[in-house]
């Protein structure tokens, strides 16, 4: 469904990316892990076209989208759950959800969409008239997920949802993401918390220093030196002794 070919990004203070190539199949849940500063957020923002790229191309369902603006990506069914949630904090919960279905095609399904979101996150229904900025961190992340679902996407780009959340809330949130995926959603997940990412992903890319250093199934990856090296600084020789 999504294919990234030899993507190069360098933009201001964002970490640079060199020659990133990756795919997300239809209905697949792919995770990108790596330490902070590796360029994960740069990658996902570039796929959402809110960051320009310098080289390479991005393809969606066989169509090249590299030159399109972010609005067009939304039309094509790609929804972003940005790092740090980036809600419209001065607007109510309900208004945030409505912004999710701003594009005309999604607007037609506003009522069903909202029902579905409220079904997944009942607390949002309770708080629907509350200003988003006054929600707790966990509720804000739920709202960010809900806003993206309102866009009726085919592909969900999820950037570091666990950021700033307690372990318990993180776990609950990932249960929900798992369920959304089980209902058939393709997902590209960026996560610094490897354990959680590897737990739900079907395929994983490890990014370090702006490059993909490893890829594979979660089970095979966990044992590999790349992850342990990147996160714990273990060098393999010392570890194996």
């Amino acid at each position, binding site marked *: 469904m999504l294919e990234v070919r030899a993507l190069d990004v360098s933009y201001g203070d964002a970490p640079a990316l060199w020659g990133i190539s990756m795919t997300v199949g239809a209905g697949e849940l792919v995770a990108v892990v790596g330490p902070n500063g590796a360029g994960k957020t740069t990658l996902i923002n570039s796929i959402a076209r809110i960051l320009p790229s310098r080289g390479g191309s991005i393809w969606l369902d066989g169509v090249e989208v590299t030159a399109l603006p972010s609005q067009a990506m939304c039309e094509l069914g790609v929804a*972003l759950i940005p790092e740090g949630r980036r809600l*419209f*904090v001065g607007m109510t919960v309900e*208004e945030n959800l409505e*912004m999710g279905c*701003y594009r005309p095609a999604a607007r037609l399904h506003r009522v069903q969409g909202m029902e579905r979101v409220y079904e997944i996150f009942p607390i949002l229904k309770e708080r629907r008239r509350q200003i988003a900025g006054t929600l707790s961190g966990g509720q804000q992340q739920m709202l960010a997920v809900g806003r993206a679902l309102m866009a009726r996407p085919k592909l969900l780009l999820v950037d570091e949802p666990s950021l700033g959340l307690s372990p318990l809330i993180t776990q609950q949130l990932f249960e929900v993401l798992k369920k959304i995926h089980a209902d058939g959603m393709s997902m590209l997940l960026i996560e610094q918390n490897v354990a959680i990412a590897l737990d739900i992903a079907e395929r994983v890319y490890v990014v370090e220093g702006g490059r993909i250093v490893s890829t594979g199934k979660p089970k095979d990856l966990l044992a590999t030196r790349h992850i342990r090296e990147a996160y714990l600084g273990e060098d393999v020789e010392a570890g194996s002794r």
Partner: protein
Amino acid sequence: MPSASLLAQSILSGILIGGLYTLLGLGLSLSWRFLQVINLAHFAFVFLAAYLSYQLIGVAGLNPGLALLILLPIFFLIGIALQYLLIRFSVNEFASLLVTFGILVLLETLIQWIWSADFRRLETSYGTASIKIGAIYVPIVECLMFFVAVIVAVVTWAWLKFTYVGKALRASAENPIIAGAYGVNHKRLAYLIAGISGATAAIAGVFIALISTLAPAQVVVWLGVVFAAVILGGLGNPLGLLVASLVIGVSEAITMAVTAPTWAPLVSFTLLIAILILRPHKV
């Protein structure tokens, strides 16, 4: 202490002038909040509209309603043209204050060049008509202006509050990048709001032509007090602006009646200073 009827008359005129402040401030408030443009030229637009109304109504003999219908699209386009200029040079919020002041000076001289520095007064049969209720005189045109102000403010508020476009504008003002990622075309909305701001100048201009004496130097007369109302009411909040305008209008009128007319500016500017110091983050 003034008599009760004088006080009542003052309060009424304060309420009515509050309507004028609302009409003057609406365009300023919208473009400040949603375009990050502090449009001082708006005051020149208003007077340009007022002089054009003077020409259309007084000289060409048109009906004021018809004059307004002619002026609305013109000023809608003027608003868009200004926005185009500001985007073209990617002018930031602070620089917009200075650029639009330059435009204000230019338009002011243009007005003076066409209509001279002399006072102009639109003489109509209804301009000064009023009805007497009890001991109070109620000027008809100013009442009409007040009701138009209320309607425009409420409609704009509802538009921002309940429509998709209004919500998209608010979302875009908060976070244009993410709003864009959800399909909001910020640029198109920006032109729309710039046009609407311009159109409000036409409405204010027609009423000023009807109720007031025109002179080029008048352009900046209401600048300070309208800024106070805009900030007090909250940027981009038409209902807040309406309430703030009424509060300022009435307190000015009472200050004038109780002390001297020359003390009136103290009210709005002290309020403005207080609001800036106490809650600048809300602006």
